[in-house]
């Protein structure tokens, strides 16, 4: 482990190794500065969370009551119809009466599709990128640096540049409108993933590997049984980031997915909006659908909050 540069392993445990000292020193004196600081922080947190509340409030309202009650912080015309429409549970007549469009939405299917795509991308990308990162970081082989530079060059390539050709490619192999088609481009690697993991692998102590080699372990065995477990904080971080990114991807699934069978949650929202009646948008239904689209990630976050927050923090140490 290096000591001068910021140690990558530092935030594995509590991210503040100096915490005990800090709390010992922290006098609970409310200076004007502290008050101001807290005020600012609270305002920002409010601004962060208010839109979520508004989403809930509108989802529980009725469309007809919205124009009159735009300033009301509470739901107007309290009703669960918005959610029923978003889930496709309301009949066509009910929908039309409430200002909805009567179109059908297959939310459970979209949710499943999102899970499949995100999981597929995360598991495969992290795994294969880890393998490559290991080869770049710990193995010495001719051409290693050149290949790595080429991989890194991929970091500067904007998504849109490879988008159209990838679209043509996926279409030509017949994977358009399928879930693997959506997952494929990032499933094997992304330059970022390789870069990120390589940095971490490079920082792992060499001694342990040497010991394993002396014990007769082959490269693969060393990788799986020793190196990968040691890198688990980095791997988890990457997995979290990849999952979030894959889950929230919009443009690529928009192009690849044509029908319900391969639609993911981000697209569902667009579809729901596109199916709005010609009059006003079905705000209540739309907000309900938005909430439902955001819910899985939020729940996941609630469950793994500490892990995820620490992981994000870890990313900063490059």
């Amino acid at each position: 482990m290096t000591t001068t540069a910021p140690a990558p392993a530092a935030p594995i445990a509590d991210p503040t190794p100096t915490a005990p000292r800090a709390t010992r020193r922290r006098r609970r004196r409310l200076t004007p500065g502290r008050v101001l600081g807290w005020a600012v922080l609270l305002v920002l947190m409010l601004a962060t969370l208010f839109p979520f509340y508004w989403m809930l409030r509108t989802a529980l309202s009725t469309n007809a009551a919205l124009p009159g009650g735009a300033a009301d912080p509470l739901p107007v015309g309290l009703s669960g119809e918005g959610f029923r429409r978003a889930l496709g549970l309301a009949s066509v007549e009910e929908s039309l009466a409430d200002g909805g469009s009567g179109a059908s939405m297959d939310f459970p299917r979209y949710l499943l599709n999102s899970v499949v795509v995100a999981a597929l991308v995360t598991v495969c990308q992290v795994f294969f990128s880890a393998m490559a990162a290991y080869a770049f970081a710990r193995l010495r082989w001719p051409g290693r640096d050149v290949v790595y530079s080429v991989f890194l060059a991929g970091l500067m390539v904007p998504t849109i540049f490879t988008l159209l050709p990838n679209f043509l490619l996926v279409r030509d192999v017949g994977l358009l409108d399928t879930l693997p088609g959506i997952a494929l481009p990032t499933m094997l690697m992304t330059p970022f993933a390789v870069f990120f993991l390589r940095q971490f692998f490079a920082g792992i102590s060499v001694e342990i590997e040497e010991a394993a080699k002396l014990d007769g372990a082959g490269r693969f065995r060393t990788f799986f049984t020793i190196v990968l477990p040691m890198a688990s904080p980095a791997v988890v971080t990457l997995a979290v980031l990849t999952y979030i990114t894959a889950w929230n991807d919009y443009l690529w699934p928009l192009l690849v997915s044509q029908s319900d069978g391969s639609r993911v949650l981000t697209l569902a929202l667009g579809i729901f909006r596109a199916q709005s009646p010609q009059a006003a948008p079905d705000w209540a239904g739309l907000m309900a659908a938005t909430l439902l689209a955001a819910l899985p990630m939020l729940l996941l976050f609630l469950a793994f909050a500490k892990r995820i927050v620490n992981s994000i923090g870890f990313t900063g140490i490059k």
Partner: protein
Amino acid sequence: MSAVGTPTRPGAPARPARRRSQEVRNLPAALLFVLPAGIGFGVFFLWPSLRGIWLSLTDSTAFRAGGFVGLENYQRMVADPVFWNAFKVTVWYVLLNIGLQTVLAVLVAVLMHRLTQSMAVRGLVLTPYLVSNVVAAMLFLMLLDYQLGFVNEVIEGLGGDRVMFFGDQSLVIPTIALVNVWRHLGYTALLLFAGLQTIPEHLYEAGRVDGASELRMFRSITMPLLRPYLGLVLIVTMIGSFQVFDTVSVATQGGPANASNVIQYYIYEVAFSRGYDFGYASAMSVALLVVLAAISVLQFRLTRANQNDMA
């Protein structure tokens, strides 16, 4: 090992023969390790890049492959006012978005660092990052609506005039920038927060003993040591910011009258709704690539120049 990725090890001597043969022996294993990622890279990054460049030199449409037309698409691009507008609009967006986001992120990170170590705060701040851009756009479409939006009701209640957030040409880009700041602030702040945590506490202690105020310590201790992280975060978020699409697609569709027609959206429109011109769209993508490559090169230079001030 250095914190910033540099593939070559500085000062490496010419490899002695023994090491070289070891390297060659490593080759089969290494290749196996790299193979899946290599295939992924080749098939989904390298090949599309080459194909994209080829497409930009043809008159391909969405429906049929075209023939070689040389630099025609690029000539058209240079003469296209909508392209330059898209470029201008995007740069303006990036400046607003990254500028505000970075300043606020530093503020939040410092506040989190100096005021509280609460996990709750950090978690709450991160929440918008978890929802997709599409969700964020939809949310703010409602909140900022001219007729129904809560924000406008509040403004009117406070005695002001209603604001056409998405409908006013001069306001639409700042509005979209703000929406994305809302979404990315927490994430950026946490990145910087992690950077802040590498600053040894004893420096602040020493500062306090010397009687320095928080502001002074921020200027003299925090900022210089945070700079490498700041630089990195800045460039990475900037590259992402240039590629804004989701919000525009959901909220404004490039309007009003091209005021929010950012480059990635224009490319998408050209390819899929205005003439289905894949050749021209590819040419514009190449232009975007060049710009982003320039920025990336700047990144590597800057971060290498700003070596860790700790040493």
